[in-house]
Structure formats: C-alpha cells, structure tokens
C-alpha cells in the first residue's frame, strides 16, 4: 500500500468525518485522487465502515457490555468459522474474535441490562452445538475504546506566546 493510502487511513481512523477536500489538502493530493483512493479502500474492504464512537455511559440510555469467553469444538473442514458465524450474526454481538490460548472465541455483547445479556448467553450461545462452555464477564467501566480515552482532559495548557 502506498504511504498516501496509509495516511488516508490514519486520518480516517481518527476522524471518519474528515472530508475528501480536507484530506486532499492535508496530503497534497487532488480531491479526485482522494476519492479514488477511498473508493479503492472500500472496495478492497480495507475500510469496512465509518462508525461513531459513543460513550453510552454519558447518555441517558442504559446499556451493559459483557465479554464472553467461549470454548467451542471446531467442525471438520470448517474450523471455527462456521460456529463463529452462527454467533456473530446476532445483532446483540458487537464483536467476535478467534483467540489463541485457553479459550477459543471472544464475544462482546451489548444489552439493555445484565439480565438481558445473561439470558442471551444462556438461551442463544450456550445451547449452540459445538459450544463447550461460556464464561461471562461484565464490563464495569470503559476507560478507553478504539484508542480514545473517554475522560481525557484535552485542555491546552501551553503558554499562548513563546518565541
């Protein structure tokens, strides 16, 4: 990948709302070049979405997040992919990773409350064929997500004038 492509990703990763005009200016490219580059990155599934990072704790909406450790039996010919798909298709599943180590899948679940999440695990995940065991950990506080510190004091305390 060209260094310009990497820089486009670097910019968009920090700010998905950066406009093509702004990016063009930052990277000394034409607007058309930036548009083409972003289109290519989207087609190649390098860019797979433009999400907003939300700290739900600061909103009125009640949500809980849980991290579920799953041990599963891989299926012949399909490894973990098939069972993973049956899990990640649920909209409640925010993330799903295949892991090395003492368990196999990490599943991040969001729900309205602990009961809802616990029921989802008990009724949907645990009974799945191939799931050997589950272990549910509720998130108590999010300090940092996707590289963003939630309670960062971004105050500029520099001297306003310095030669």
């Amino acid at each position: 990948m060209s260094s310009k492509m990497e820089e486009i990703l670097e910019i968009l990763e920090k700010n998905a709302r950066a406009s093509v005009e702004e990016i063009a200016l930052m990277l000394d490219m034409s607007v058309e070049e930036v548009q083409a580059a972003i289109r290519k990155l989207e087609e190649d599934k390098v860019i797979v979405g433009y999400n907003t990072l939300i700290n739900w704790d600061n909103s009125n909406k009640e949500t809980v997040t849980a991290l579920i450790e799953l041990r599963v039996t891989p299926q012949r010919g399909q490894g973990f992919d098939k069972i993973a798909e049956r899990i990640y298709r649920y909209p409640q599943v925010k993330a799903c990773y295949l892991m090395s180590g003492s368990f196999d899948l990490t599943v991040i679940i969001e729900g309205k409350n602990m009961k809802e999440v616990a029921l989802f695990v008990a009724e949907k995940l645990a009974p799945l064929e191939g799931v050997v065991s589950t272990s549910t950990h509720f998130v108590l506080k999010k300090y940092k997500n996707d590289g963003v510190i939630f309670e960062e004091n971004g105050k500029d305390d520099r001297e306003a004038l310095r030669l």
Partner: protein
Amino acid sequence: MNLQEMIKPTVRNMPPSGIRKYFDLLNEMKDAISLGVGEPDFVTPWAIREAGIYSLEKGHTHYSSNPGFIELRRQISRYVARKYNVEYDPKTEIVVTVGASEAIDIALRALAGPGDEVIIPEPSFVAYKGCTMFTGATPVVIELKEEDEFRLKPEQLEKALTERTRVVILPFPNNPTGAVMRAEDQRKIVDVLKDRDVIIISDEIYAELTYSGKHISFASYPEIRDKTILINGFSKAFAMTGWRIGYACGHHVLIEAMNKIHQYAIMCSPTTAQYAASEALNSCEDEVQAMVREYNRRRRVMVKGFRDAGLSCFEPMGAFYVFPSIKSTGMTSDEFCEKLLMEEKVLTVPGTAFGACGEGYIRATYANSYENIAEAMRRINRFVSRHRK
C-alpha cells in the same frame, strides 16, 4: 543606591521583549486562538512520562554526573550517529543540558567575549542574540531573504566574516521561518568555513521535523566536524518542552569547556528528565514519526490557508512554523498582529520579534488542532479581505 545602575550594562540595556503587550491583550480575551505557541501541542508520549514517574518511584532523585548519566550519553551518541551520521565519544564529547537553550548559552559563554563577533542569521530564535550580548561579544546579523527561501547563502556568510569573528550560528531548520538548508548550499557554507578559525554552533533542535527528505547535519561534514558544536534536544521531536532537556556534541576540547560552565551554573540536568529522555531514545521512534506526519498535514493546511487569504507564503520545510508575508496589506508586522488579535482573536507573532529583517512577516504555529487551524484560517481570511488595500 540606584539599583538600576547596579545592573551591568549588557543586561540593563537589553531591550524588553516586544511581545509583552500581546500577553496583556490576550489576558482580557476569551476564546482566542493562539498560533503564537512555540512548542508541540502533543503531550509527551506516555512511555516517556511513565519512565519519568518510575524513576521517581525508585527514588532516583539525586544528582547525576555533571555532563549527564553515561548511559544516556551513550544512547545520544548512538542516536546522533544513526540519524546524522557523525560519531561522538560519549565520555568526552557530549554534555546533557537543561534544554537546547542552555547549550546555546554555555557554548557562547565558552567561546565569545568582548571584542569578538558572533554571526547570527536572522530572522531566528531570540536567544542567540541575547546570549551573545550577555557575553559582551558583538552580534553580527545576516539578513536572510524570502527570495532565497530564508536559506543562508555562502556569499552572505563570506561577507559577514571578519578577523574578529569567533562564532557562526547556523539555525536550521529555522524558527521562525521554517526554512531548511539544501545540501548544495550546505556544501558551499562548509567550504567557506573549513579553513577559518571560527567555531560553528549548529542548532538543530528541529532536525526531526523536516518534510522534504532527510535532515543533513552540518556536523556530518568531516572538514568542519571538529569546529562544530551540534546542539539538539528532546523538546520538539519528542514533545518534551517542559522537561527541559537537550544536549551538545562536539570535539572534547569544546565540550570540556562548556562542561566547566555547566558544572558551576547548573551542576547537572534534572535526573528525572534524563531518565525520561533515555526512554525517549529507547522506544519512541514510531511516535515521533506519527507526530511528524501529523505536523506535515497541518503544515499544508496552513500554507494553503494563508495563500487562499491572498498572502504570499514561502513553503516552509521544517519546524512547525509558517512565515507568510503581510506586506500586501500595507500594515507593519506589529500592526497586523495587534489588529488581528483585537478584531479576530487570533494570536500570531510579528516577524520583528525575531530580528528587524522580520518586518513584513508574521509567524504562525501549526502545532495546533485541525479545528483550531481551520477556524484561525477562516478568521485570517476574513481579516485580510477586510483590510486589503
């Protein structure tokens, strides 16, 4: 007793800084955007801060040896060799200073005195002239020109050199212009200086912040290596301004002389900062490069912003400053900056703060967020169109 008369003339006669009034104006103002800052907006990378904290936890709160911990000097030696292709013996040829500023001061104090001349290209950092005058030596200013892209031309240097020249200061990449030297000009400067009995102080504090290829250190030319004091530090590249830590490298005779002053005036650089600096050299290359890419993007945004506002703006390839010409507005630098602050609440620095030849220019820093830069450029655009002659 008149206390004023007790102050020695070189200090008493030093004119007060012309920027005082901007602080006063700024204090009465809310939501002003400052492009007058002279330091990174990034906070020191965490690994460095953590190393400083850890050193305190471990109780490393004592003096180090005068020139700095030998481990840190070894690291600096390796870093300078790798980055700038010049070798220094960590035992005798490196002194760790309280910021690059101290290095400038003790170098000048070690070298220059009454009757000596110190060549200073301007516009440039104010301390060169100030520290020179405190030694009693005479500053000889070379006026860098926009048409030369604010580079020092060998002919200019040739003309400024006299029998009394003791020191030549080479301030590149440059604050406030953002100018960098080109290899072909550097070569000619080296040819001018190599057979002269002068010492070169090359202040390369912005060396890592260059945007047009690799920085070439003056010290890397073997012909002048032994007569060059290479000054660098951690403030700009590693975003460590408040830690106050820098260093000077040079022939052992020069560094030993500087270390004599350093040991009486300073004793040693802050120990915590030395531990932090050691970690900076250890593990922070990627973070430095990420910051450089970020500065470069902001640089382009700001240069375009000034040009769109109708001001001619030389393209700076180093540091984090833009130095546009405001001559087309018919205002002096000082008028421009004061009006801009009062009318649009954007603070910039008049070019004259960096030498008389800075008249007609202003310095703006792009070590700031995109949002602030974009908003400042909108205001400057509005301001310039309103005042266009």
